[in-house]
């Protein structure tokens, strides 16, 4: 038997993908897979929220000011941060790392603004007496139905869990982008694009959290103010 190494031909070309079937590097593919798994985490949380909401009397306590005004401005901040991030990635793809850093810093600014506004909003609700497993007394009296059914105390649990996990993602993203901004000259373009993917995902999640948590719980008739 010959000791000469045989040349093995993998039929990679037969399926048209070559060695890069997705035309992305393994790190970018890894980020996409992380985003898929994180999407399922948030989907499961939102489904849990929908389950509780459908099976209970649900309070709708958010007034126009501060809750809806704050959450709308927060949405504006996140959407704008996505725009600055995509400008940063675009600048990076053209080799302009200085401009990329500038846009990433703008993205971090909007992200931090989001967190600050969200914490003010949380502080307002906690000040009113909302806790993970109990409602403020005046919410209970306002939203008890005419046949005596009490509103569920789990409103706070779902609100703080979902918005808290999202805020944690924003905070993590701000730290991640800070590292990227600091090392932008040393990083490859794809690394900056990957950080952009994460940031846009955080924005994307808010596009579901904002309407489902805030818009669907607006105190339309101003019941709490009466």
């Amino acid at each position, binding site marked *: 038997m010959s000791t000469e190494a045989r040349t093995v031909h993998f039929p990679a070309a037969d399926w048209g993908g070559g060695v890069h079937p997705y035309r992305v590097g393994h790190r970018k593919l890894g980020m996409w897979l992380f985003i898929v798994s994180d999407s399922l985490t948030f989907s499961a949380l939102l*489904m849990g929220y929908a389950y509780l909401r459908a099976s209970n009397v649900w309070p709708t306590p958010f007034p126009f000011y501060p809750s809806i005004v704050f959450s709308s401005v927060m949405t504006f901040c996140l959407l704008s941060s996505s725009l600055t991030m995509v400008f940063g990635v675009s600048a990076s793809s053209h080799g302009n790392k200085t401009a990329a850093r500038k846009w990433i810093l703008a993205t971090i600014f909007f992200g931090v603004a989001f967190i600050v506004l969200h914490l003010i909003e949380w502080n307002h609700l906690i000040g009113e007496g909302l806790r993970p497993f109990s409602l403020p007394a005046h919410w209970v009296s306002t939203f008890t139905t005419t046949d005596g059914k009490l509103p569920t105390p789990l409103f706070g649990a779902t609100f703080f869990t979902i918005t808290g996990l999202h805020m944690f993602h924003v905070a993590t993203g701000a730290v991640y982008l800070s590292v990227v901004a600091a090392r932008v000259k040393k990083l490859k373009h794809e690394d900056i694009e990957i950080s952009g993917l994460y940031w846009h995902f955080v924005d994307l999640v808010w596009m579901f959290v904002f309407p489902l948590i805030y818009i669907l719980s607006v105190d339309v008739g101003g019941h709490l103010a009466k």
Partner: protein
Amino acid sequence: MSAHVEEEHFAGSNKLFTSIWVWLILLTLIEIFLAYRPMPIHFMLTILLGLSIIKAALIVAYFMHMKFERLSLILTIVPMLVVCICLLFVFFPDSIRSAGLRYEFKEQPPAAEEH
């Protein structure tokens, strides 16, 4: 990292991205407007979810660059995610059933028996 991946330019112009941002802001304003329109919650939920899916699609397609990726990547990620999320709805009818099973405390909860 492959060299050919590195060489590729990020498709899409800043003008395109700005127009997507404007659309996202407009859709958000519609959502806020709808919040104060009296309508059954089922209609509201359907419209809001529809708008959210459109917004998510715009973000994924343009900001996350998915529109410019190879079809094999899109087919690997998107259908699986959609199917998994749809499967979560299997729990949902139980929420309506359990609403009818819950004991309603009209007054104080009954005291535990003393032994």
